[in-house]
C-alpha cells in the first residue's frame, strides 16, 4: 500500500489526452485581493495572487499545479470553483462559461466540481458529526431522497475512503489528520463530481500517512471517473499523481507540460531549480543542485518584466523589461521565458 511509485505508469492520459475532451479551461484568469487601508478603509493596492493564468484540463487526467508557498495556488483553485470571484478572465467548465454564474444557477453547477482542502483541522466543522458532514451535500441536491437511503450511501462512502461504520456518529476531533482528510475526501465525493481540486491534500500529514492518502486519491480517480487538479508545493508529491504539470511562480504559470517533459527537459530556469531540489533516489546519479538566491518578491509589488528575474541565475538585462508570454516551445510544452526558443 505504501508504494505509490508505479501508480501513474499506466500513462493513460499522457498518450491520449490530445483526443480527449476538455473538462476545464481557464483563460487569462486574474484574482487580485484588495488591500484596504487608511482612515476611510479605501482600497490602496492589490495583492496579485493570480495573474493571467491560462491552462486546460482534459477529462480523466490529472494536472499538477506546483509552486512555493504563497504563489497563489489556493487562490487559483478557489477562484476556479467560484469560491472567490475572479478579477478578470474566463472559466469554462464542461463547455459552459461559469465565470459570471451566481445564486441558484451557480449552486446547481457546484455539484460537478468539488474541493479537498489543505488543512484537515480547519476544513471540518467541529460541531458536526461525520455522518452529517457527508450527508449535507447529498441532502442539498436531493432533498427528497429517503434518509435511510442517504445513510446507506454515506456509510458506503465512509467505507470506500477507508473509515469504519462507527465513524458516522463521531466528531472530527476524534480522528487523526489522515482520517480527517479521508472524511474531507468522502464529502467531496458525495455528489459524484466530475472535477476535484485537491489543494495540497497531504502537505499537513505525516510522511507515513501521505502515501496512503495519495493512493486512495489515485484509486478513486479510476472508480469515480474523476478529473483532478492536484495542487502541491513540491514536485515529489506531484510526480506520482499527475499526467501533466504546471509550475506556478508569483501568480503566473511559468511552464506547463506533460510530466515526462517537465522531468527530462525542464525549460524554465525556475522549473530547473525545483527539479534539482527533488531528492534523487539513486545516490550514484549526482546532480547539480541549483540554489535560488533571495526571497520570493511580494505579490503586492511584483517585479517588472519577468516575475522571476530577481532570482533567476540566468537572467539578462532584457528580463527586467520584457514580460515573457507562455508560448508553446514544443508540442504540448509551454514555457514563459525569453531565453527559451
Amino acid at each position, binding site marked *: 500500500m505504501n508504494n505509490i511509485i508505479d501508480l501513474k505508469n499506466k500513462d493513460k492520459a499522457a498518450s491520449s489526452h490530445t483526443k480527449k475532451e476538455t473538462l476545464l479551461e481557464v483563460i487569462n484568469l486574474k484574482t487580485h485581493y484588495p488591500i484596504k487601508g487608511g482612515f476611510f478603509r479605501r482600497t490602496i493596492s492589490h495583492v496579485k495572487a493570480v495573474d493571467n493564468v491560462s491552462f486546460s484540463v482534459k477529462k480523466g487526467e490529472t494536472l499538477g499545479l506546483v509552486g512555493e508557498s504563497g504563489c497563489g495556488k489556493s487562490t487559483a483553485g*478557489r477562484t476556479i*470553483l467560484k*469560491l472567490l470571484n475572479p478579477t478578470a478572465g474566463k472559466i469554462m467548465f464542461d463547455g459552459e462559461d461559469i465565470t459570471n454564474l451566481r445564486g441558484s444557477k451557480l*449552486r446547481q453547477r*457546484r*455539484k460537478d466540481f*468539488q*474541493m479537498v*482542502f*489543505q*488543512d484537515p*483541522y*480547519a*476544513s*471540518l*466543522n*467541529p*460541531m*458536526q*458529526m461525520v455522518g452529517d458532514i457527508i450527508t*449535507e*451535500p447529498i441532502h*442539498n*441536491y436531493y432533498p427528497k431522497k429517503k434518509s*435511510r437511503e442517504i*445513510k*446507506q450511501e454515506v*456509510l*458506503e462512502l465512509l*467505507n*470506500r475512503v477507508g473509515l469504519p*461504520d*462507527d465513524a*458516522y*456518529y*463521531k*466528531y472530527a*476531533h*476524534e480522528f487523526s489528520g489522515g482520517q480527517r482528510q479521508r472524511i*474531507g475526501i468522502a*464529502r467531496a465525493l*458525495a*455528489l459524484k463530481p466530475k472535477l476535484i481540486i485537491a489543494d495540497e491534500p497531504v502537505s499537513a500529514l505525516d510522511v507515513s500517512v501521505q502515501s496512503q492518502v495519495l493512493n486512495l486519491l489515485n484509486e478513486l480517480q479510476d472508480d469515480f471517473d474523476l478529473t483532478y487538479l492536484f495542487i502541491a508545493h513540491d514536485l515529489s508529491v506531484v510526480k506520482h499523481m499527475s499526467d501533466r504539470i504546471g509550475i506556478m511562480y508569483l501568480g503566473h504559470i511559468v511552464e506547463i507540460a506533460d510530466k515526462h517533459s517537465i522531468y527530462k527537459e525542464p525549460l524554465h530556469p525556475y522549473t530547473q531549480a525545483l527539479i534539482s531540489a527533488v531528492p534523487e533516489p539513486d545516490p550514484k546519479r549526482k546532480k547539480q543542485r541549483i540554489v535560488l538566491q533571495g526571497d520570493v518578491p511580494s505579490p503586492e509589488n511584483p517585479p517588472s518584466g519577468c516575475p522571476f528575474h530577481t532570482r533567476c541565475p540566468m537572467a539578462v538585462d532584457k528580463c527586467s523589461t520584457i514580460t515573457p508570454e507562455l508560448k508553446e516551445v514544443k508540442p504540448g510544452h509551454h514555457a514563459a521565458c525569453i531565453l527559451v526558443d
Partner: protein
Amino acid sequence: MAELADKTNLHIKPQKRMSPWAVARRKFMKNKLAMVSLFFLMTISILSFLAPYITTADISRVNIGSMSLEPSAEHWFGTDKSGRDVFTRLLYGGRVSLLVGISCTMLIIMFGTLIGALAGFFGGLVDTMLMRFTDFILNFPLLVFVIVLNAVFFGKLGGVPVLIAVISVLGWGGVARLVRSKILSEKENEYILSAISIGSRPSKVILKHLIPNVLSTIIVQATITFAAMIVVESGLSYLGFGVPAETPSWGNMLSASREPDVLQNMPWIWIPPALTLIITILSINFIGEGIKDALNPKSLR
C-alpha cells in the same frame, strides 16, 4: 471494497458522549464554583417564580397596623414602611427583576446575533450599512432616553413591557459587534468554503456552520448581558425611572434605602434585596466564567 460496502450496518447507534456539547457539559460539572453558583441561581429563580405558592401575604395592600416591623416568626424579614412583608416582596421582586433580565437578554442576543451574523457573513455593502446602524444604536444614550420618555409620558406609558422593549431596542449594539467580529474570523476556516462548495445556501451556512461555532461566545456574552440587565433594571428602578413603584422589584425595594432613617435604623428593609442582588449577579458571572472555560474551542481542535 465492494464486500465492505455490503456489510455496512444501518443500525449503528449514536454515541453522544463525544459531542462537543457533552464534553463541555462534563467539564462544566467539574467546576465547583460554577456549580454552586448555578445552584444559587436556580434556587432564587424557583423561589421567585413559585412565590404565589410560597407566601400567601398580599404584596400590594398597605397594612397600617404592621408598619416597619422587625423580623419575627410571622414576618421573616420584617415589614417595610407601608407594612408590607419584605420576604414576600423579595420573592415577587425577584420575579420582576429576573423576568426583565431574561427577556432583555434574549431579545438583545437574538437581535445582536442576527445583525452581527448578517454583517459578518455577507460583508461589503451589507456590512457597512448594518454597522452604521449599530454605531448609531451604540451611541444612543439609553439612560437619558429612558428618563426623557418617563418625563414625557409620566406614568401613562409605564410598566414592565415598555421597559423591556426600550432596553432591548437600545441594547443590542455591543452583541452585534462582537458576533460580527467572531463570524469574520470564523468564516476564514475552510469548512465554510466547503459548505458553500457542497451547495448549502447562505442561510444554512450561517445557521448550521457559523452560529454553532460562535455559540460559545454568544452564550458567555448572554450571561454577561443577563447580569448587566438585572443591574440596569435595578439602577433605573432605584432612581425611579424603571419598573413602576407599585410593582415590587429588587431595585424598587432598594430605593427605600434612599431615606436616611431606613438606611440607618431599618436594615431589614434593604439588606435582603441588596444581598440577593449581589448573590445573583455573582452567581451569573461565575456561571459565565464556567461556561467560558468549558466551551474553550481550542480543546476540540
